């Protein structure tokens, strides 16, 4: 308790909040009591340190923001790839050996696979389950009521038509999943290909405020190897968002890295936490990494972000008979998908960045607040 009294006194002393008499008394006390003086000096030093810390921290934050703005503009480009030449050299040098090694490895794996498949009587152990929620009406009936209420309100207050924006006809969705912005300037969203394949007729995205916008699929991975799809919001009512708060990582996630995700397993946005538990996915699929967390129907397409605000993956599936095993597509695959999109004439404006981001060093609540506008519910029928 004495300690807090002392801190209080020193703090008021530093900030000049002491009355003149109190100040004289305090300084007298310091002169006569060397122990107190020592404590005051220490406290002063500590306040100074704390102040420096605060100053540098807030400056760093401003710096990061300026940098990410400049990066969004293209002034600062963070490119990888020095030393690529070396890799090519090595490749040329060891091509033949690699080929021999690969074919041996191939033979061995075929052999092992056949042994395993004969030994294993093809039980249905460990299946993958995709996380699209095929809406059974429940969530939407609430939405219907809400829509009706909206229209009632509109009728009731016909004198003030501004109250409800002439409600766009809300569609009866057959499925629900998640997607998130990767290019705020041009409103491109990424999600899972298996999500988009559910949309036979119409596709919309809905933000956390319940506003719906029309989107079109720009790219759907057809080879089926990475399950990514890219959409573009084409709705004229959609207001462009400021630059992305997260950056998109090119490198793989580290084992044990703490991550969090935002998604729509229900009608509102849901936060989840976990960690990277393996570098590869189901049956060693290198497109994916494995997370330890929970995910439900509707989580497909959720962004997975580490604590410094780098996007490291996209939630795709869970293993049906293992608890807490969730697979996410590694973020590097987004770059590949974006390269494909760039080749399309109408969508060559797409641009994403591995730098910037304004989430670093912020408390989690603030990170979520900054991020939630960039995560969308993907719906369709």
């Amino acid at each position, binding site marked *: 308790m004495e*300690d*807090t009294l002392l801190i209080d006194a020193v703090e008021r002393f530093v900030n000049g909040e002491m009355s003149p008499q109190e100040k004289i008394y305090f300084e007298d006390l310091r002169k006569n009591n060397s122990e107190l003086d020592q404590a005051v000096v220490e406290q002063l030093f*500590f306040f100074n340190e704390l102040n420096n810390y*605060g100053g*540098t921290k*807030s400056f760093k934050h401003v710096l990061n923001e300026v940098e990410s703005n*400049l990066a969004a503009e293209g002034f600062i480009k963070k490119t990888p790839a*020095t030393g690529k030449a070396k890799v090519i050299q090595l490749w040329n040098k060891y091509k033949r050996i690699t080929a021999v090694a690969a074919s041996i490895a191939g033979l061995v794996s075929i052999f092992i696979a056949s042994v395993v498949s004969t030994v294993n009587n093809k039980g249905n152990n460990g299946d993958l389950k995709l996380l699209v929620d095929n809406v059974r009406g429940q969530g939407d009936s609430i939405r219907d009521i809400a829509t009706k209420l909206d229209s009632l309100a509109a009728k009731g207050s016909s004198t003030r038509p501004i109250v409800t924006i002439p409600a766009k006809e809300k569609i009866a969705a057959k499925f629900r999943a998640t997607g998130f912005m990767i290019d705020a300037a041009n409103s491109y969203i990424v999600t899972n290909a298996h999500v988009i394949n559910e949309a036979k007729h119409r596709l919309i995205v809905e933000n956390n405020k319940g506003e719906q916008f029309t989107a079109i699929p720009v790219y759907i991975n057809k080879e089926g190897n990475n399950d990514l799809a890219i959409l573009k919001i084409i709705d004229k009512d959609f207001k462009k968002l400021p630059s992305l708060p997260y950056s998109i990582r090119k490198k793989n996630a580290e084992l044990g890295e703490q991550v969090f995700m935002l998604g729509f397993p229900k009608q509102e946005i849901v936060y989840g936490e976990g960690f990277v538990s393996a570098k590869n996915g189901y049956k060693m699929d290198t497109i994916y990494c494995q997370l330890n967390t929970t995910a439900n129907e509707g989580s497909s397409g959720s962004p997975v972000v580490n604590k410094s605000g780098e996007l490291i993956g996209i939630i795709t599936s869970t293993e049906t008979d293992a608890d807490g095993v969730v697979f996410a597509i590694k973020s590097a695959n987004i770059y590949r998908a974006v390269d494909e999109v760039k080749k399309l004439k109408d969508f060559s404006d797409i641009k994403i960045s591995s*730098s910037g981001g304004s989430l670093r060093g912020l408390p989690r609540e603030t990170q979520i607040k900054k991020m939630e506008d960039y995560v969308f519910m993907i719906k369709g029928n």
Partner: protein
Amino acid sequence: MNTLEQEKILLKGLATEDRTSIERIYRDHFNMVKSLIVNNNGTADDAADIFQEAMIVLFEKAKLEHFELNCQLKTFIYSICRRLWLKKLQHLNRFSTQSESLEETVPVEEEIESHEKKQNDFNLMEMAMSKIGEPCKSLLEAYYIQKKHMQEIAADFGYTNADNAKTQKYKCLVRLKKLFFAQYKNID
């Protein structure tokens, strides 16, 4: 207005975390630093990191009361970045065939040394902050970094009044101090 005066204004802006000034400095000098680093075994990412660090050095200096830059801003930034980068290369054991610097440089040993000390203190404080846990961390950050008023903090954190919040803040501060000095003394 000559460049010297313009740079003075820029540095004043920097000291008050003014975004336009920071952006101006980026636009004027980043490319120079980038070519320095990319030509010396570095990547564009390294360049961005080094430039940020140099900005912090500059910020620390600009905040000082009797601060005067006795060379061009460009020269100063170049010298700092060069020094920082050479240090980093040494650290990574990536020795470069040290290219002769094309730009003029000034000695910056003192600045680098003081910056390293500050950086070290910063890391210690950050570590101490990460160890005290919630709600202490947010409480202290709200008061000492975001400089919010005690009343506002009391409302945000759900304390019945400012005095309660204050008592809690002092308790947190005592803990933070202990954590900080425990490590601080270890290192000395």
